């Protein structure tokens, strides 16, 4: 098969894989952004057992490789407890990956949030209190936007890392773009023994992260209306 004949087949396959990559990226972001806030409230709670529990979880998650976490979450229920909760096939791999990524990223996000909240002067709380606001109103109406402004640069960093980290789901054979590129080495759709599709996947990541960088940069600029 000539290169010209291979190209459409390969691109089609990589596109399909990248769609899965994007799906995992999107779902992780949707899940980890709010879950991170909950963990952040837990890890700063005045209720000691809850605080220690959250700190413990954060320590475990940040202290072990995401790749191992993926394998433990995917294989352990079936192999150790004889209860394969994820089910077989692609949907099961995707769900297990999403769960692992959401938990992992929520822990990192929670620490970024914590820094962002603690950087807000206590005078903002006090000003809200003497104006008769509730704690919820102070958080949502006064502190949240200030926190978002402060955490946006470190969050952008994490988000770009997440795009690339989704490739780790390859380790449990989730059919994302790395898996799709690698398939042409072993043989797929009549093509085998070529490595360029695997290398070519880097372009996808690069372009997508380029778009994200622009979008996140615009968002940062948008929040420059206050200091």
């Amino acid at each position, binding site marked *: 098969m000539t290169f010209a004949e291979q190209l459409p087949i390969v691109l089609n396959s990589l596109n399909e894989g990248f769609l899965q990559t994007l799906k995992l990226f999107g779902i992780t972001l949707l899940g980890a952004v709010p879950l991170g806030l909950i963990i952040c409230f837990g890890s700063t709670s005045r209720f000691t057992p809850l605080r220690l529990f959250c700190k413990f979880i954060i320590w475990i998650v940040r202290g072990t490789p995401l790749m191992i976490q993926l394998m433990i979450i995917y294989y352990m229920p079936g192999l150790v407890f004889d209860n394969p909760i994820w089910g077989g096939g692609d949907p099961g791999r995707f769900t297990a990956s999403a769960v692992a990524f959401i938990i992992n990223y929520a822990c990192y996000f929670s620490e970024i949030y914590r820094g962002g909240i603690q950087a807000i002067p206590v005078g903002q709380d*006090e*000003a809200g*209190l*003497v104006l008769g606001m509730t704690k919820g109103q102070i958080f949502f109406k006064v502190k949240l936007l200030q926190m978002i*402004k402060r955490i946006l640069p470190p969050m952008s960093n994490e988000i770009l890392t997440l795009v690339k980290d989704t490739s780790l789901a390859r380790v449990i054979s989730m059919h994302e773009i790395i898996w799709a590129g690698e398939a042409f080495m072993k043989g797929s759709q009549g093509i085998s023994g070529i490595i360029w599709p695997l290398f070519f996947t880097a372009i996808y990541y690069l372009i997508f992260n380029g778009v994200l960088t622009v979008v996140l940069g615009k968002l940062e600029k948008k929040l420059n209306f206050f200091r």
Partner: protein
Amino acid sequence: MPILEAEHICKTFGKNEVLKDISFSLEKNNVLSIIGSSGSGKTTLLRCLNFLETPDKGIIKVNNKILFDSSAARTDEKAIRKNRLHFGLVFQSFNLFPQYTALQNVTLAPTLQAKNRPDFKSNKASILSEIKNHGIELLEQIGLGDRIDNYPHQLSGGQCQRVAIARALALNPDILCFDEPTSALDPELTGEVLKVIKELAEKKMTMIIVTHEMSFAKEVSNHIIFMDKGVICEEGTPEQIFENPREERTKQFLYNYNRQE
């Protein structure tokens, strides 16, 4: 009948007794200035009145109604929130909300309060425009009618503090408290803030002012409290305190102050 009565207020931080049995009262439409050196407990007293600190002991009454009594059961948060509304507090460091314009800073709290009104849903538009107009009026009164859409970082320190005063006034407090309102300002900007406070005094606003501006305290107050090491060392009219102080500690404080001037 006094509008505010504080009885036997005590407050300790760790081993540090900051307030030792403070009692005083304030008549309606009067201005009380609290003076004294740093660390004498002035700010803590003000924070206790605004329920930012909980006194260990003591009673706080407004209009003869007990708002706080250390011997009674702990007040729940909702009641504390309601009690706070008797007081307004202007901070040394302004504490304006940076993401809101001057006008939004003034109208935020009244808008949130209005949402609890039973008729809010049916009269939303008219209630909100009423709040907005009141906010504009307040900002015009303090001479910032042309800056209502500016954000705090676009305003000078003196302008920020004036917005903070308008923000506190927007909730119509019975007593407006100032915690060293000009200490974070350049001498040049101090005057514009003091002028606003003086105008409020002329309008018979009941106020408590913690300040290091002695000549201002003398000019604007009906009553002066001199605090030292957590106790009220001496109190009286401005003439009494500044012209004929009785206590040795007061004389010394004023002597040191005048020497610096």
